[in-house]
């Protein structure tokens, strides 16, 4: 403790000599954050007499490399003053221990490359004798503060945005003067809004009632979940019965702002919920669309449907690996090829199954169920033998990672957005196939009246095979899509088979529209219950709901009108 105060006195003295007029302000600050404050004061000071610098001053670099702590502090302050992007690299190097000295020269060493700290030129070969520059904790703290400030003023928007967000989320006191300075210079609305709310949060601690009210009012425009906590804290009662905020006017303003912020956050949550259910619904839809053809139209209970999805996912994996090896420069676009290959792989497997097994079991649904279950076991074990029992890694292409932030508490990931679009696309394609093509006409004809279709010359057996192939191929497309959002492993299909049957059964067989409504409806109900009670309970509730629903309407949501034929 004693050393601390001694240190403090020395530091103050050294700064007092440089920036005497500001000394009186800095003395009021806590020991803990003084280093950062000092840096900020310096910034403030230089803003008053702003001057441009084009290169890093050699004196500053020498002070950083060879000086004692006080000299280094001063040098850091000076760098902040200059707001040079190269200062960021220099300070980062010092903070992470990449700064080395070779004789009188100061180098930033990155792996095998070295750059001169003063000129920024590449130095090669590397001087053999080098010494690390070691920064103590105090200097490191100062560096962190300085970097935060420098980044606020960076010319690149992304760097500024990142620094502002980090500042908004940090629990430390914000460096107000520099934030205000940054706000003055800022042109981007998003960053501006965050800066305003940072200043307002700090303003809540002011001693002047008017400033607090102004701060509370400014916070109204924030959509940061932390703001809610801040405002709620203002309105809380302490243990002795008095409010945390003594002034009634501030409390009134705070409760108004709180309501506005909560409304906005609630909207965010609602949008998030709708998107999550849309996303789950489209995943269910992709899983169930193939079944809607094989089960819904053809009446074949295919328990291996999930495994056909798995095959699609593994086909994607294989294509991805092939791209990595043979065409790494095209890697971002591997999905363009993976989608058709997943379709073809699953469709081929499906057609082989239809020819060899399922064909012989038409009209015996229970036997079909058992045989296809057996097929699913074979496929699972086959994949285990080929690819191993572990999950495999399927990477998102770069354009699918990340997401759009609509509100500060809602981020829509790109891969989910693409899956929603993809599901819609597949749906349209199937609809067109069934209603606009010759094959679709045949499939519908064979489904409605097999002997009649046969009489007018439709090769019913071939239509069966093709239709089953299409249904299986769509399962493969579903698997390809799932590989982008979840794990790819031999058990991938098992987790979807119950769900996809539920969707088809709920929607009513022989109907695309029913399948769509059922998938989206189930996705929504599932997410809605999930937001109250957790995922597992939601899943159980949905299953029980379907079981009860089927009791009431065994024909599903949308059945054909007319008398169903007794089997």
């Amino acid at each position, binding site marked *: 403790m004693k050393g601390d105060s001694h240190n403090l006195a020395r530091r103050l003295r050294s700064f007092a000599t440089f920036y005497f007029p500001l000394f009186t302000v800095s003395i009021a600050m806590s020991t803990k954050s003084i280093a950062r404050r000092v840096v900020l004061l310096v910034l403030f000071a230089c803003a008053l007499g702003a001057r441009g610098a084009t290169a890093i001053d050699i004196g500053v670099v020498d002070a950083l490399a060879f000086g004692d702590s006080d000299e280094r502090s001063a040098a850091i302050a000076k760098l902040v003053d200059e707001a040079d992007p190269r200062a960021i690299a220099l300070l980062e190097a010092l903070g992470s221990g990449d700064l080395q000295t070779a004789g009188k020269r100061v180098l930033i060493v990155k792996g095998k490359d070295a750059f001169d700290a003063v000129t920024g030129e590449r130095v090669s070969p590397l001087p053999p004798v080098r010494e690390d520059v070691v920064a103590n904790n105090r200097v490191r703290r100062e560096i962190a503060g300085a970097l935060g400030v420098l980044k606020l003023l960076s010319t690149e928007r992304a760097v500024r945005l990142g620094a502002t967000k980090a500042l908004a989320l940090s629990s430390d006191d914000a460096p107000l003067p520099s934030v205000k300075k940054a706000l003055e210079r800022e042109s981007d609305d998003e960053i501006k809004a965050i800066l305003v709310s940072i200043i307002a949060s700090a303003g809540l601690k002011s001693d002047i009632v008017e400033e607090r009210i102004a701060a509370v009012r400014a916070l109204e425009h924030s959509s940061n979940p932390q703001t809610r906590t801040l405002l709620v804290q203002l309105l809380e009662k302490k243990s002795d019965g008095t409010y945390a905020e003594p002034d009634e006017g501030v409390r009134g303003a705070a409760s108004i702002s709180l309501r506005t912020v909560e409304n906005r956050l609630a909207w965010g949550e609602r949008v998030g919920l709708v998107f999550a259910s849309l996303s789950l619904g489209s995943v269910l839809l992709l899983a169930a669309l193939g079944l809607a053809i094989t089960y*819904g*139209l*053809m*009446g074949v*209970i295919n*328990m291996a449907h999930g495994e056909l999805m798995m095959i699609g996912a593994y086909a994607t994996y294989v294509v991805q690996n092939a791209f990595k090896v043979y065409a790494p420069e095209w890697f971002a676009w591997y999905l363009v090829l993976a989608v058709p290959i997943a379709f073809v792989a699953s469709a081929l497997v499906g057609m082989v199954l239809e020819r060899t*097994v399922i064909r012989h*079991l*038409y*009209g*015996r*649904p*229970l*036997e*079909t*169920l*058992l*045989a296809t*279950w*057996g097929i*699913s*076991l*074979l496929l*699972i*074990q086959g994949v*285990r*033998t080929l690819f191993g029992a572990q999950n495999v890694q399927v990477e998102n292409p770069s354009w699918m990672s990340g997401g759009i932030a609509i509100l500060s508490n809602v981020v829509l990931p790109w891969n989910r957005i693409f899956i929603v679009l993809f599901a819609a696309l597949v749906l349209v394609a199937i609809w067109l196939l069934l209603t606009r093509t010759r094959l679709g006409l045949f499939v519908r004809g064979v*489904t*409605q009246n*097999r*002997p009649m279709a046969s009489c007018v010359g439709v090769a019913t057996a071939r239509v069966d095979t093709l239709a089953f192939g299409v249904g299986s191929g769509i399962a493969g497309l579903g698997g390809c899509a799932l590989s982008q959002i979840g794990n790819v492993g031999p058990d991938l299909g*098992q987790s979807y088979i*119950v769900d996809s*049957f539920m969707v088809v*059964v709920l929607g*009513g*067989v*022989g*109907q695309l529209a029913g399948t769509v409504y059922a998938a989206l409806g189930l996705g929504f109900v599932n997410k809605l219950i999930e937001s109250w009670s957790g995922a*597992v*309970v939601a*899943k*159980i509730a949905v*299953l*029980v709901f*379907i*079981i*009860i629903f*089927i*009791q009431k309407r*065994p*024909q599903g949501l949308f*059945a*054909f009108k*007319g*008398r*169903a*034929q*007794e*089997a």
Partner: protein
Amino acid sequence: MRALLTRLYGTRGWTAIGVCIVLLCVAMPLANLVATPGSAFHVSDYFVTLAGKIMCYAMVAVALDLVWGYAGILSLGHGLFFALGGYAMGMYLMRSIGTDGHYQTELPDFMVFLDWKQLPWQWWNTDQFWWAMILVVAVPGLLAYAFGYFAFRSRIKGVYFSIITQALTYAAMLLFFRNETGFGGNNGFTDFKRIVGFAIARPETRMSLSILTGLALIATLLIARTIVTSRFGRVLTAIRDAESRVMFCGYDTSRYKLFVWTLSATLCGIAGALYVPQVGIINPSEMSPANSIEIAIWVAVGGRGTLIGAVLGAGLVNGAKSVFTVLMPEYWLYVLGLLFIVVTLYLPNGIVGWITEKIGWRGGDSRMASKVGIAGVRPQQTPPVAGETAR
């Protein structure tokens, strides 16, 4: 009484049952407990437990055959009833660990681990053996009754019924995976110490449990046989083959189905209760849809609609499984998968049906089974598409 006996089995059948009882109650204990290890007659503890386990499975298979082979109801949720019986027994076994557990408290270890202070309501009175026995029968029975009541009343049948029973057991599995349900979550129950006062790991206890299972299996077989040879059984078979016609003749088919369905579930519960003390563990994976569908293949391999076929199928498939999982575990799923395909394609009436055809040996009720496609759906030219209209 005599009339009933002759109705169930002929002289040959009864002799076979007698031989089984002697083997079970005399030969196996002697071979296991008296014969010295290493001698040709010695039977290991492992074998005794394995035999007990497979006989539990055989009980389940007979129970499923009763509803599938005779009433045409393929349940893919029988694993649920089996597991419920097992859990009821497991609760009793957990309570009788007493203070010998890891934490040495009256509460089961997993509850101490979850920081619970008292038993949840489901555990009321489970330290009493008689109450556990009531639960073993009542829980699966009541669940099956309630489920069947609604399902049969809405005339859900065929594949629809199969799929919603699968959904039922899937939902139950998810429920039991939760710690909050109060049954140990993922890990379920294990580390049992004693059953009705006897140490559970002792060879004598294991032997008694195995014998008890064997006797229960024979009892199950006789009960099932009594049912299928009665007038009630004939109505059931008629329902399997042409439900609408039976209904138009004035029978309330849903009552018949409901009775046999509930009975079947209860039998599964008893099998589960016998299974748990022998294998020493019960967890929610017993309820996984895959387990339930495997029961169906036991019955299909043996031959649907022949009770002895179910026993045979359960024995063969599980025996093969035990061999494979020891010798070459990675090939077992191939074998099982092929079994599903080959049996449905080439052995529609199972092994017993095949033997009956080849040798002309008439055992059991296979006459009925072989004449008609078993599942109650006669092979048709057109696939019956649900939702197809009769315009």
